[in-house]
Every structure is written in C-alpha cells, then in structure tokens.
C-alpha cells in the first residue's frame, strides 16, 4: 500500500493539471467582445430621434430630428471638437 501512495498522488496531480488546462480556453471564450458600448445604427435603420440646442447668436434654440420628418432629408455630421478641421 505504501508504495502505491506516490503513484496515486501523481495521478491526482495529473488529473488536476488536465482539469485546469481544459477549463482555460472555456474561460477565454466567455470574455465579452471588445468595445461593448452601443453600436452604430446601420443603413436602413431608423435614425434615433434627438433634440439638441444651438445658439443662433441671440437665443438658444431647440432642433429635433423629427421636425424634418416627411419634409427634408437631414445630414447629421458629428465632428470631434469645435476648432478642428473638416
């Protein structure tokens, strides 16, 4: 019996190593995808409505996307900061 003990320990260690190795990839796969914030709407999607303000030189005025519905196409041009090119 005493001679078998080291063999049993070795078998247990091997089993443990295999268990860790086999769970490794599964953990990696369950990681969330990169950059998981809201994604851009696609061509053909309804554009999310918004109401934003702009300053016309005298007053702050509200502009909403929905006010152009059925009347005009709208270009919404997001730019990074004022005083940059483009």
């Amino acid at each position, binding site marked *: 019996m005493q001679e078998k003990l080291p063999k049993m320990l070795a078998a247990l260690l091997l089993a443990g190593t295999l268990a860790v190795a086999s769970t490794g990839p599964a953990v990696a796969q369950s990681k969330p995808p990169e950059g998981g*914030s*809201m*994604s*851009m*709407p*696609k*061509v*053909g*999607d*309804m*554009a*999310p*409505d*918004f109401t*934003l*303000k*702009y*300053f*016309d*030189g005298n007053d*702050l*005025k509200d*502009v909403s*996307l*929905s006010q*152009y*519905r*059925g*009347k*005009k*196409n*709208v*270009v*919404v*041009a*997001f*730019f*990074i*900061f*004022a*005083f940059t*090119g*483009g």
Partner: protein
Amino acid sequence: MKAFQQNLQRLEAADTQVLGVSMDSAFSDKAFADQIGVTFPLLSDWGGEVTRQYGIYVDKYKAARRVNFLIGKDGKILEEQVDKDAIDPTRIVDTCERPKLKN
C-alpha cells in the same frame, strides 16, 4: 464642416438640411461656426447623450468619432460616412441629388 458649407447650396436644392453635432457647448459651436463661415446649425450634445445613442462615442478621447449620417424624409438612414471617409461629403451630396429623394 467647411466641406458641407461649400456644398450647402446643392444640398438645400435637394431638400436637405445639414446639422453639425459636437460635444462642445452651444456657444463655442457658434464661435466656431462664425470663424469658419458655417451658416447651418451646429448643435451642442453637451454630455454626449446623443453621441452615445448613435454609437460613436470614443472613451479614449472623451469625444465623438467623425461620422456623417444621411437620413431620409422617412427617418431611415440612407448613407453613413465614418472617420476619414467623413471628411469629403461628396457621396452624401450625390445621394441627395438622386431624383427619387427630391420628392
């Protein structure tokens, strides 16, 4: 923004309203518009709610990506231009001038 200003007559003739959006205050947007001669509204998305809603907020820069959306009269997105492609709006102007969009 200047590129849209240069094409504004064509866009307006094609029934298209241009709106710029940034995360600056409405007042710095106005100063910017005056400096570069932009006459269409530059809207202030202070806090970035709309920028996030459109999925173009970049955490790293605490700002929006440069993206142009062309939205039709039915409220659906017709064209998108992202980052470098968004500097030249020719494709959007051409799309607006397609006869079916004029009606």
